[in-house]
């Protein structure tokens, strides 16, 4: 896609669905990766990816360009995943299992992760949900603890404790 992103955003804000589809095509992989790592569930990640883009369409008018569009979209995606998880928990006390590590294998094979990266993906997917979310947001996505606390509604200290716990569990898993 060679269209100017600013022009695409502006057109999408005016209701141009073709422009929004171009934005979707440019960002879907990034949003899906985030959803997949946060949920450790392929079907749920697909659902949350769609939720995030539907919400982005609804809220496009609020995007004023103060931050990069991708940053805005990723924050919105994290919110959708976390809101979805809370709603899911309330609805049926469903525990998001992490027994589907194959979900984290990249389709196609040509562009597949290296063995150690795949081991890490699987180990991350097997983490308890709270530790996994903080690890993904901090170590994979590069959010600061203050931002994670704001996004997830936990204290900064709790965010740190979850991160350190996640790292300990990952080291144990990878050294086995």
């Amino acid at each position: 896609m060679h269209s100017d992103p600013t022009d695409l955003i502006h057109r999408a804000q005016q209701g141009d669905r073709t422009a929004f589809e171009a934005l979707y095509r440019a960002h879907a992989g990034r949003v899906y990766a985030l959803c997949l790592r946060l949920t450790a569930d392929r079907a749920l990640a697909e659902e949350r990816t769609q939720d995030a883009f539907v919400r982005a369409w609804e809220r496009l008018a609020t995007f004023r360009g103060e931050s990069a569009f991708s940053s805005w979209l990723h924050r919105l995606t994290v919110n959708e995943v976390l809101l979805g998880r809370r709603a899911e928990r309330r609805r049926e006390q469903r525990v998001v299992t992490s027994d589907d590590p194959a979900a984290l294998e990249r389709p196609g094979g040509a562009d597949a992760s290296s063995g150690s990266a795949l081991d890490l993906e699987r180990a991350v997917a097997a983490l308890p949900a709270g530790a996994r979310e903080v690890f993904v947001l901090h170590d994979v996505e590069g959010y600061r603890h203050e931002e994670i606390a704001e996004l997830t509604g936990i204290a900064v200290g709790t965010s740190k404790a979850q991160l350190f716990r996640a790292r300990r569990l990952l080291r144990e898993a990878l050294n086995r």
Partner: protein
Amino acid sequence: MTGPHRETTLNEYVDGTLAAHDRASVEAHLADCAACRAAVAELRSLSAAAASLPKSIEPGRDLWAGVETRIAQRATWNVQRLQWRAALAAAAAVVIALGLYRLLPPSTAPYRPAEQGWAAVQADFDRTTSELGLVFAAERERLRPETVVLLERNLAIIDAAMAESRAALARDPASVELRGLFAAAARQKVELLQWVVRVAAS
């Protein structure tokens, strides 16, 4: 260095969030402790591996069709909602017109059922303005804040005028002049609320 304190300190050290003097203290400890050096190396390696994971993973199927369907459904729903509100406003105008017609003096009203007196008119009007008021409440976020302030001020003035004419009509129900005053204020209120519906729908 042992236990949870060790874990926290080494993680903070790797993340670069320790104060300068704590950092110096950890570095001094690391010089003498092979186990902590190994732990730090593992933590650094883990963080680096996490940061270098692919940032993009293509979904196993194209998700756009589902997104597009939901966006289209919402657009249809929005149109239906606005059409419903416009219909409500139109219906409200009819109800008000009928109510005001009943208030007209006998000389200008060819037909006015005896049982449809002031109480029925008041009930019609209250129900209708209440429904339009709900539309206003739902749509106020679509309006500019200064417009909302002006609308609320005007509605308060109209409501005060209507309260006065209601009270006067309660004392003198047959007064043509009071009915005219009430009718004018009622029409103004409906027109104002209809304007809100039109602007919000545009």
